[in-house]
């Protein structure tokens, strides 16, 4: 018997509740004290087609999904066709006995066909065949002999309030029936089991976008303006749901241009603000990004990537916008670019983004992508330390107009919004104070903020140096070099950024378990950086292989642009599906030849 180390995949049409069932199942398992990793795959349609949700379970923290699954839970026939090949030997395929499924094919793989009267139970016990998904999840629980009470709890939470507990009761009756039947029929044939960890601590079951949202709230973000775009929408919607509770202002703008400009207006008034979008929407923000750079307005932009070009694969994942974001906007101006790799990092880096933005009075771009945004993990509540974030809030050289004494002191000897300073950062006093009246401009301006109507070369040179100087200071004082995971002296170092963290980390663990010596060098901070340090780090790697989800090897190119160093190899994936450890390990063999 294999205890608490199993992967389930639920599959079906859009509208069958594949995702909600999978997430509910994951939550129930997490409540039993186990760690989970949930990943979704859905099409750009609202009904029909084929979606799936995968839940991997273990007693240790998980950072990625894996292609191999033990139990396939089919809400439709297509699911079996699509995913049978992923079921391991001895694994099971659970489906409604009414489905036309080639049981022989399943057996041929050494897997166990597990037909069940799911629809029948849903209809007869629950009185509604839509409850088939409840039956399926419960049946799966029965097969792995997982304590049903956890499932029941989740059902109560989901339906309890919303649709009146009567529905909850019926779902629970359905769950019990399916659970018993499935256990009776198949539990003895299936070697993988789930067992609750006695009095385990409560954990959050949370995804990357929710962590970004919590980070923004914790950092004191009070304003959000965006236009819906997958995979950023769920972050935007999370913020919309917090308006009352946290007294924040959230606006759905007419387009992304307006979204970022709303934020620039709010930030100019002294409020922490962010906009979130995906590549297409970010394209529309590019002109305003340049304005934020010129006017030194601290705004945060979450760029939730999906595959392009154009509309590409709108519900899938990729890391294709790195070089675009780094160079986006006409003219030259400072910006910071961060790429959290884990859900924990999503929380802390989002909060940090506001500090960097206000400290250096420049736009900050926070990368995520469909994979990180939606992948689900069980995380200890303490891992999100609100007090720490609060204590680290740094608004930089900011005095708000109603902080009268501070203003009086500061402006004793005159105030100029864009005063030249050693670090390039000027005192920022938003409009509103009787003694601080000024006008700013996106045109080249004087320290006072006025357009330099004389357009002198001297002022232009000083202003360019002032603005760009902030990058040097940030690189020295605040930006962090990439960090290693794994043994110090490795033969192969995987270099990656953002969401690749999880799959690469698990690839490293697996490879090293099998006797290799590999480690990971992960970039969270992408720009600005102290590149001399990065160069040293890379020069101390025996060989390094860049792993990223794009075609052109953008991180590898960025590193080469800044260090001249060329990766020994690049492992790339651009089919819109997330990286996974197995993929990395398989492709390592291919590229190793070159190394």
């Amino acid at each position, binding site marked *: 018997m294999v205890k608490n180390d199993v992967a389930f995949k639920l599959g079906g049409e859009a509208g069958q509740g594949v995702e909600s069932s999978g997430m509910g199942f994951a939550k129930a398992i997490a409540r039993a004290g186990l760690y989970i990793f949930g990943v979704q795959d859905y099409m750009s349609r609202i009904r029909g087609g084929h979606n799936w949700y995968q839940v991997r379970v273990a007693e240790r923290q998980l950072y990625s999904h894996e292609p191999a699954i033990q139990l396939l839970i089919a809400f439709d026939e297509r699911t079996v066709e699509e995913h049978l090949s992923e079921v391991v030997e001895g694994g099971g395929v659970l489906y409604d006995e009414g489905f036309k499924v080639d049981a022989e094919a399943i057996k041929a793989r050494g897997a166990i066909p597990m037909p069940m009267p799911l629809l029948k139970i849903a209809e007869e016990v629950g009185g509604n065949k839509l409850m088939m998904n409840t039956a399926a999840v419960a049946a799966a629980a029965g097969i792995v002999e997982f304590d049903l009470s956890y499932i029941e709890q989740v059902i109560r939470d989901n339906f309890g309030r919303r649709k009146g507990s009567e529905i909850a009761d019926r779902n629970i009756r359905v769950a019990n029936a399916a659970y018993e039947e499935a256990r009776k029929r198949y539990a003895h044939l299936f070697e993988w089991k789930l067992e609750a960890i006695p009095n385990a601590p409560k954990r959050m079951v949370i995804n990357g976008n929710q962590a970004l949202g919590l980070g923004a709230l914790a950092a004191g973000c009070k304003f959000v303006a965006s236009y819906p775009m997958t995979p950023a929408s769920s972050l935007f919607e999370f913020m919309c749901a917090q308006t009352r509770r946290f007294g924040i202002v959230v606006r759905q703008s007419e387009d992304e241009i307006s979204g970022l400009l709303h934020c620039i*207006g709010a930030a100019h008034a002294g409020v922490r603000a962010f906009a979130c979008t995906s590549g297409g929407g970010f394209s529309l923000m590019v002109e305003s990004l340049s304005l934020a750079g010129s006017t030194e307005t601290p705004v945060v932009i979450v760029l939730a990537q999906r595959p392009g070009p154009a509309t590409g694969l709108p519900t899938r994942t990729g890391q294709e916008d790195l070089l675009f974001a780094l160079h986006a906007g006409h003219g030259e101006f400072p910006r910071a670019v961060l790429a959290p790799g884990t859900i924990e990092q999503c929380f802390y880096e989002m909060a940090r983004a506001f500090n960097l933005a206000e400290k250096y009075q420049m736009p900050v771009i926070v990368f995520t992508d469909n994979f990180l945004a939606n992948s689900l993990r069980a995380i200890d509540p303490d891992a999100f330390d609100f007090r720490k974030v609060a204590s680290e809030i740094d608004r930089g050289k900011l005095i708000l107009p109603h902080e009268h004494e501070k203003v009086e002191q500061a402006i004793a000897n005159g105030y100029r919004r864009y005063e030249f300073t050693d670090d390039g950062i000027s005192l920022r006093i938003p*409009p509103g104070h009787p003694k601080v009246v000024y006008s700013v401009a996106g045109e080249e301006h004087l320290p006072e903020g006025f357009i330099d109507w004389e357009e002198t070369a001297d002022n232009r040179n000083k202003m360019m140096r002032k603005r760009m100087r902030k990058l040097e200071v940030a690189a020295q004082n605040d930006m962090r070099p990439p960090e290693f995971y794994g043994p110090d002296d490795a033969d192969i170092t995987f270099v990656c950024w953002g969401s690749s963290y999880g799959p690469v980390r698990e690839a490293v663990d697996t490879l090293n378990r099998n006797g290799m010596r590999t480690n990971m060098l992960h970039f969270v901070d992408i720009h600005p950086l102290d590149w001399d340090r990065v160069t040293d780090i890379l020069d101390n790697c025996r060989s390094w292989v860049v792993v990223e989800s794009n075609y052109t090897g953008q991180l590898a190119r960025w590193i080469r642009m800044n260090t001249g160093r060329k990766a020994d190899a690049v492992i790339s994936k651009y089919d819109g599906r997330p990286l996974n450890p197995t993929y990395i390990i398989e492709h390592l063999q291919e590229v190793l030849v070159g190394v």
Partner: protein
Amino acid sequence: MATAPVTMKDLQSPVEPTWCPGCGDYGILNAVKRAMVQLGLRPHEVFFVSGIGCGSKLPDYIRANGFNSLHGRPVPIAQGFLLAHHDMKVIVVDGDGDNYGIGGNHWLHIMRRNPNITHIVQNNMVYGLTKGQYAPTSMKGYVSTTSPEGTIEWPVNPIAIALAAGATFIARGFSGDPKHLADLIAKGIQHKGYALIDVFQPCVIFNRVNTYDWFRERIYKLEDDPNYDPHDRNAAWEKAHEWGDRIPIGVFYINEEVPTLEEQIPALAEKPLYQHEIPPKVEDLEALKVAFM
């Protein structure tokens, strides 16, 4: 709002206007100052947001807070600023190219939100700063460097569109009559909600058709017609289409019944957003965690 008297001198900017001699923008600048004086608005109480164009340089030429932004983009910046600091008077000043051309979509949408923003459009029916190309408001057949044989599209009708899009205060002024214009601007600022003041602003360099004389020969004041009721949307609709020998200026439409955007946002009930304590209470944040467990 401040009550102590404000003088024209208080509003004097150190910056000399770069406008051409005789430009209609001088009249607008003058009218804006007069309006602030009338209302006793102090420099620090007002925030001007402009686009890019000749007229959009106005914020530099008046002592007040300002933001000279991008061509066609002042409107969303103004909304973001207003929601962060809603006890300030936010005034957008931009060109016809800014607002009826490239920025048209922002304009369409601000009108149905009714934020308390006054919007002065410097309508010279031409692109001034870029040296004379035709504008969305140029009359059909207008000849310019980009329409050597005359434009073939019909001009935007700002008044009619504003009416259709839900603007709650719609007026048209003439920079050649700064006193009257000042009045309209003052009314617009006092109006609770979005106020559009489209201003005929002769460009003495590039627009040789719509000159001071051209306007003077045609314009008349709506308020001179005792029967005209600016609360009547249909009447406003008809007046909006009056164009030719007689062109109305003044207040076309007012609707005081509509709540403002910011009134409808609970977070802003107590005090401006920028004054809110951050971060939120840790208890409240911790409470959120529970939802995920």
